[in-house]
């Protein structure tokens, strides 16, 4: 297993990521209507909500993949709105898309080594393979020949190498068997111990509850509620109403 790295953070206690009045558009369609939330260093925060609420779009807007966006996204004090995705990645945010984005023309090894190192302190290749041992035997396979769970591990594993300590994960458990979901949950807890900050988009509320410190509820392009993990039990019914489960 991996050794726990010392948790050193600038501006501990203040928000690492502050999203204010974030609006976003797909072509002419206005999808985000003023998203507000904070993420503090070392936290795992989920964005919960129904399909089409704007959770994925929020991650894409933060990452700069959504080209038409307004408002403010401050990361470690630096304004990211207006920067291209590559500059946001270089600022230290790593993104794992919902569709996983494994490249079929690349081997597993090439997929793993693709994202460039943006700063020191990332996991080594062996660290990643220590966390996801299934990948080790498949390094020479074509990336998309992996099972869904292995592809998800590869998609998470490859961004851990870059040195970015702030991860945006879009539905990492979608469509996966329960045993794999558990393994990914354990991985996220390990990453939290190692000082990673994680914003997680989830439909699977039970999974979210097992890993996150706080939950933001997104509906129709706005954050409509915030629930800490401690308050979760008392708010189950309210949440079920939000999520329509």
């Amino acid at each position, binding site marked *: 297993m991996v050794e726990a790295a010392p948790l050193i953070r600038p501006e501990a206690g203040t928000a690492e990521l502050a999203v204010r009045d974030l609006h976003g558009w797909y072509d002419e369609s206005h999808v985000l209507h003023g998203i507000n939330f904070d993420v503090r260093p070392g936290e795992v925060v989920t964005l919960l909500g129904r399909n089409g609420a704007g959770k994925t779009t929020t991650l894409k807007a933060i*990452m*700069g*993949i959504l080209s038409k966006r307004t408002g403010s996204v401050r990361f470690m004090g630096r304004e990211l709105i207006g920067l*291209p*995705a*590559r500059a*946001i*990645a*270089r600022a230290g945010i*790593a*993104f794992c*898309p919902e569709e996983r*984005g494994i*490249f*079929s*023309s*690349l081997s597993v090894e*090439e997929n793993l*080594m*693709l*994202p*460039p190192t*943006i700063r020191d302190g990332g996991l080594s290749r062996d660290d990643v393979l220590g966390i996801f041992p299934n990948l080790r035997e498949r390094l020479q396979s074509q990336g998309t020949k992996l099972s869904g769970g292995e592809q998800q591990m590869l998609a998470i594993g490859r*961004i851990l190498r*870059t040195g970015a300590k702030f991860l945006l994960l879009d539905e990492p458990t979608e469509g996966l068997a329960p045993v794999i979901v558990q393994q990914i949950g354990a991985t996220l807890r390990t990453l939290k111990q190692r000082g990673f900050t994680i914003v997680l988009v989830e439909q699977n509320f039970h999974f979210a509850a097992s890993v996150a410190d706080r939950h933001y509820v997104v509906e129709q392009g706005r954050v409509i509620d915030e629930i800490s993990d401690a308050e979760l039990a008392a708010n189950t019914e309210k949440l079920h109403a939000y999520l329509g489960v």
Partner: protein
Amino acid sequence: MFELLGIPPQALFGQLLLGLINGSFYALLSLGLAVIFGLLNIINFAHGAQYMMGAFLAWMLMTYFGIGYWWALLLVPIAVGASGVVIERLMISRLYHLDHLYGLLLTFGLALIIQGLFRNQYGVSGLPYTIPAELSGGTNLGFMFLPNYRGWVVLASLVVCLGTWFTIEKTKLGAYLRAATENPTLVGAFGINVPRMITLTYGFGVGLAALAGVLAAPIYSVNPNMGADLIIVVFAVVVIGGMGSILGAIVTGFGLGIIEGLTRVFYPEGSAVVIFVIMALVLLVKPAGLFGRTV
């Protein structure tokens, strides 16, 4: 010596060699087109004109500055490639959000302009470019006489093609290129400067065309239409090999050159159309091309 179906071996090997030479140019040119199409999704109709520019630039270096073949082989691809970089930055990059057809129209227009400028300046009669002294003469292989320069062209083309294939399929740089071909947005979100990669890729593809032009200068006469004549066949080669397939471009380029040569031996009347007949057949059976990814 043996005789095959009543064909004297000298004629057979002679046409095989000619086919191999033509194949060398088909391969180099379709390789550049494939690299460009893979990443830019643009059919570079200016490719023939850029090949012609390569031959002309070699001729100009020699005629006006006394700079010989070997330096031209290095300098011309860089210079013409740089012109490609400028064209991509100033013009092609503005078209990516539009239908692919616009890129085709733009590069076709550029090709006409470039050819027109050279025709205006130098006419169409063709200018001579002498074979470098090191490669003049020939070698007797026993079964045939091989002009040294032609052997060199085949060898150089093979080395450049395989080098390009290796770089794209086996190196880290190539992994970036393949990944950006599949999903440029995600590659950008990893912190890689995809627009710059696209620009340099276009420059590289154009540089390959110019390199082919320098190699061609001592064999074919240097004239403004040399690219336009060749590029139609090269497009057929690209279609047969499969759009965007690197290995497909190389194998099909050499293969069709040889098939064309053999046709000239056994059925000379068909040699001008054989490639297009094969193209039609391949399109009927395998529309994505022999090596193409089915989309």
